[in-house]
């Protein structure tokens, strides 16, 4: 499986070059890669699905942290990997036609391939951190693909929104995954899934579960994070079909399924996951009312479908899990197909407005066929797979502990609305009167209908002959439940209450279809309610953050050096002061010790010089006093066994004084610029900083020194480096590279000084003045 991931990344590198070579037709070529993976994966099917054996690969990555490139292909991974590669191939072919002539078509191929690799990584990873890396990679590629038309503000805003929501959830997810691996003692998902009981009884379970759920809910657009998904529809349609319907948004659902053995089964899981799923299922369906854009209609029903899957995973149990898996498969087939159909219609007519579309069947025969087949499945009509999924959904609701009037009522309502949307998207544009469209509809090439026809056809074939997909579904169900449950699917369940609910849904849906105009007018209310939705919260939060950033930049970066120094000193003093105060032990230690008279004199002189400097008005006196401090330092170094320091300090101090004397007379005299109260405040802050340093010295010197490093130098200076002056040996030998760096800095400073001195400002001034004159002239002209 590492081969798949690596080959994908390597292939992606060559895509720009291949695209330049083969042009728009290269979609067919690029589709070969996912097709190859599809066949490879299908080749593993007898082992994985037939014998229920997972294929594992382990390559050490960061052994010290227990992180490895662990991949595992089991039933669940197989289901998703087949969807990702299969639909991926079709979408790439589609992109070859849909984006033909688009200046960024090559970029599309590159990004979609990268996304595909990332998504495969998510579903094949057996290590939490590896899964997270791929998870974030899908967020990033999704961001780039939503913002594909980056010249448009709307596209950039939607891309930002999707990224902030999903990557924000990703941060929570990371924390949750780290907690989970701490609790389980391993990052390997297969190991974690075997220790479910221990994890669920751990005290960290609640925290880990909540964090992981935030990650999964944001990714899968669950209420209240659902708003980013409809906005993401600004992406090119193949992207919407692939990322934002068939695969990426299902990553959250996938994660819930993947970790079901470890996390599910508690009342917290059931309450949270199923109620969030239920809310999302209702919200998605209801918000679809009033939408006129094909893609937004599909997006809201996608939200609803994701809610259904989450709901089922939250309910848990054999039947619900089976229903969830069938639903995932059915949805991927019909929704992927319908998005591609919407794209073809858009391409052909120039609009996606359902009110303006009609009678396209004769112009787009194949697209119409695909739309009809997919529409049947979406509407939940037999014999499509969608019907089977809905039957199973109802059945698991009957079994669940939820009050039936609530859960079944919600499901029937959502099902009826989905029916209406299916009719609007898959039926209305192709029949009835010819409507006004931006340009006369033109037929579309094979790239446009191949994918939809295959996907929708699969939905129908599998519906009629469920046995074809049973091994796949059974494999996934078995790995979610970690059992050897046998799955049997049949289209006809006999005359049961469930069939009654199905008929009721269809009846209501038919009624809704008949009166859809009135219903859609009712949907206008969402537009009025929008300012109070969760999207508004996102907006307010984001604007608040921006304002806060602007405010704190204005306050903290205000351009006054005095303020900066003050901020730094005060922050340091306040933050470290607390810790120092709590270790007052230093007050007792020290004492004057064995201070000698001449040392005392040096220190007193230096203190006196320092205190005097700020009060001096004469520049020469200031420089001289500054020299006193420097030469005092020379004496201290000399007394305390640092002859090298004393020599260097002496030389440098002399140079500094000369430099100042040379430069200072070119400078203005000192004048008192700051009023006294401010000076007093500054003094207080400065004294705080000084006291902190004094305290630090006393505390540190009161503790014993641990001279590991110096001992090494002391022992080896002569033996290894043939030098008796240990300080010199450190500088030129042991830490020779540091000294090289130092020399470089000095050289740069020297070049800087030279450049500044040589800078011919006269010419610069002429330039400035010239600019001013020009500006004035322009101003006059403007008047």
């Amino acid at each position, binding site marked *: 499986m590492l081969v798949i991931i690596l080959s994908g990344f390597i292939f992606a590198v060559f895509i720009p070059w291949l695209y330049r070579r083969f042009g728009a037709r290269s979609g067919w070529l690029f589709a070969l890669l996912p097709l190859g993976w599809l066949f490879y994966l299908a080749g593993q099917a007898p082992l994985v699905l037939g014998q229920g054996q997972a294929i594992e690969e382990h390559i050490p990555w960061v052994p010290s942290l227990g992180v490895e490139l662990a991949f595992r292909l089991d039933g669940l991974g197989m289901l998703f990997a087949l969807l990702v590669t299969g639909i991926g191939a079709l979408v790439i072919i589609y992109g070859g036609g849909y984006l033909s002539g688009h200046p960024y078509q090559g970029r599309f191929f590159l990004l979609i391939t990268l996304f595909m690799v990332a998504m495969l990584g998510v579903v094949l990873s057996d290590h939490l951190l590896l899964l997270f890396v791929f998870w974030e990679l899908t967020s990033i590629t999704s961001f780039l693909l939503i913002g594909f038309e980056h010249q448009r503000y709307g596209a950039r805003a939607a891309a930002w929104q999707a990224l902030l929501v999903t990557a924000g959830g990703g941060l929570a997810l990371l924390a949750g995954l780290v907690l989970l691996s701490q609790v389980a003692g391993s990052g390997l998902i297969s190991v974690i899934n075997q220790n479910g009981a221990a994890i669920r009884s751990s005290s960290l379970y609640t925290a880990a579960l909540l964090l992981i759920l935030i990650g999964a809910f944001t990714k899968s657009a669950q209420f209240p994070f659902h708003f980013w998904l409809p906005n993401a529809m600004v992406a090119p349609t193949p992207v919407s079909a692939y990322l934002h319907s068939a695969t990426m948004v299902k990553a959250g659902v996938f994660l819930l399924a993947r970790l079901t053995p470890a996390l599910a089964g508690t009342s917290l899981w059931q309450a949270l996951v199923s109620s969030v799923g239920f809310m999302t299922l209702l919200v998605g369906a209801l918000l679809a009312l009033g939408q006129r854009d094909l893609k937004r209609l599909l997006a809201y029903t996608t939200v609803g479908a994701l809610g259904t899957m989450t709901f089922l995973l939250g309910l848990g149990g054999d039947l619900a899990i089976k229903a969830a898996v069938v639903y995932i498969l059915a949805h991927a087939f019909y929704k992927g197909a319908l998005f591609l159909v919407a794209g073809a219609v858009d391409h052909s007519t120039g609009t996606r407005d359902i009110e303006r579309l009609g009678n396209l069947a004769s112009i787009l025969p194949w697209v119409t066929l695909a739309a009809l087949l997919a529409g049947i499945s979406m509407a939940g009509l037999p014999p499509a797979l969608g019907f089977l999924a809905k039957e199973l959904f109802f059945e698991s609701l009957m079994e669940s502990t939820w009050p039936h009037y609530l859960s079944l009522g919600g499901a029937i309502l959502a099902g009826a609305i989905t029916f209406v949307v299916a009719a609007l998207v898959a039926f209305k544009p192709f029949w009835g009167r010819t409507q006004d469209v931006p340009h006369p509809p033109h037929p579309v090439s094979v790239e446009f209908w191949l994918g939809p026809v295959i996907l929708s056809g699969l939905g129908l074939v599998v519906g009629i002959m469920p046995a074809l997909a049973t091994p796949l579904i059974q494999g996934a169900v078995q790995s979610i439940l970690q059992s050897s449950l046998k799955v049997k699917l049949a289209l006809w369940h006999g005359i049961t209450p469930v069939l009654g609910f199905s008929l009721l849904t269809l009846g209501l849906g038919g009624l809704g279809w008949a009166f859809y105009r009135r219903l859609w007018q009712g949907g206008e209310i969402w537009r009025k309610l929008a300012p109070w939705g969760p999207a508004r919260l996102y907006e307010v939060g984001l604007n608040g953050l921006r304002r806060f950033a602007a405010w704190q930049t204005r306050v903290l970066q205000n*351009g*006054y*050096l005095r303020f900066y*120094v*003050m901020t730094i000193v005060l922050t340091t003093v306040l933050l470290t002061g607390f810790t120092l105060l709590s270790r007052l032990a230093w007050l007792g230690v*020290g*004492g004057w010790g*064995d*201070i000698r008279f001449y040392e*005392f004199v040096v*220190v007193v002189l*230096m203190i006196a010089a*320092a*205190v005097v*400097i*700020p009060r001096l008005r004469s*520049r020469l006196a*200031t420089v001289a006093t*500054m020299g006193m*401090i*420097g030469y005092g330092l020379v004496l*201290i170094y000399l*007394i*305390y*066994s640092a002859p090298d*320091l004393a020599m*260097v300090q002496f030389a440098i101090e002399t140079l*500094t004084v000369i*430099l100042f004397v040379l430069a200072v007379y070119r*400078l*203005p*005299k*000192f004048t008192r*610029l*700051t009023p006294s109260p401010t000076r007093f405040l*500054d003094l207080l802050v*400065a004294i705080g*900083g*000084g006291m902190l*340093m004094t305290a630090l*010295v006393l505390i*540190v*010197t009161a503790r014993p*020194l641990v001279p590991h490093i110096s001992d090494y130098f*002391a022992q080896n*200076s*002569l033996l290894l480096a043939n030098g*008796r*002056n*240990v*300080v010199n040996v*450190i500088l030129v030998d042991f830490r020779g590279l540091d000294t090289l760096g130092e020399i470089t*800095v000095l050289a740069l*400073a020297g070049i800087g000084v030279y450049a500044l*001195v040589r*800078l011919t*400002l006269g010419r*610069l*001034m002429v330039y*400035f003045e010239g600019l001013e004159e020009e500006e004035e002239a322009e101003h006059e002209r403007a008047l």
Partner: protein
Amino acid sequence: MTLALALLIGVLFTVALYLMMRRNLVKVLIGLIILSNAINLFIFTLGRLVRGRPPLIPAGETALQPPYADPLPQALILTAIVISFGVTAFAVALMRQAYQVLGTSDLNELRDTDIQPRYHPDHYHAEDEAEGH
């Protein structure tokens, strides 16, 4: 003696920080120089004070015999002294040039990048003469 040096370090830091909060560029620069001296002394004191035992290996011996002054802080300070001189030299040159071009050394007037240069060859010398040089 450690206590005396600790007090000296405190005073040097106080003065340096106070000077760095002034508006006059020259004072800020002097503050910077005192600050680097104070930091060097700080590191030096933390390496412990030892009289009369420089880290030099006497002839006939192969290694330093304790007690000896810690060579590591000395090496660090040696580097720091030289670097801070580089910084000082650059800062002095920059300050001089900035004053020539902008005609001010008041930091509060140097907040924008859009200050109109006030320099004029005559203006500069005129002021110099007015000061009596």
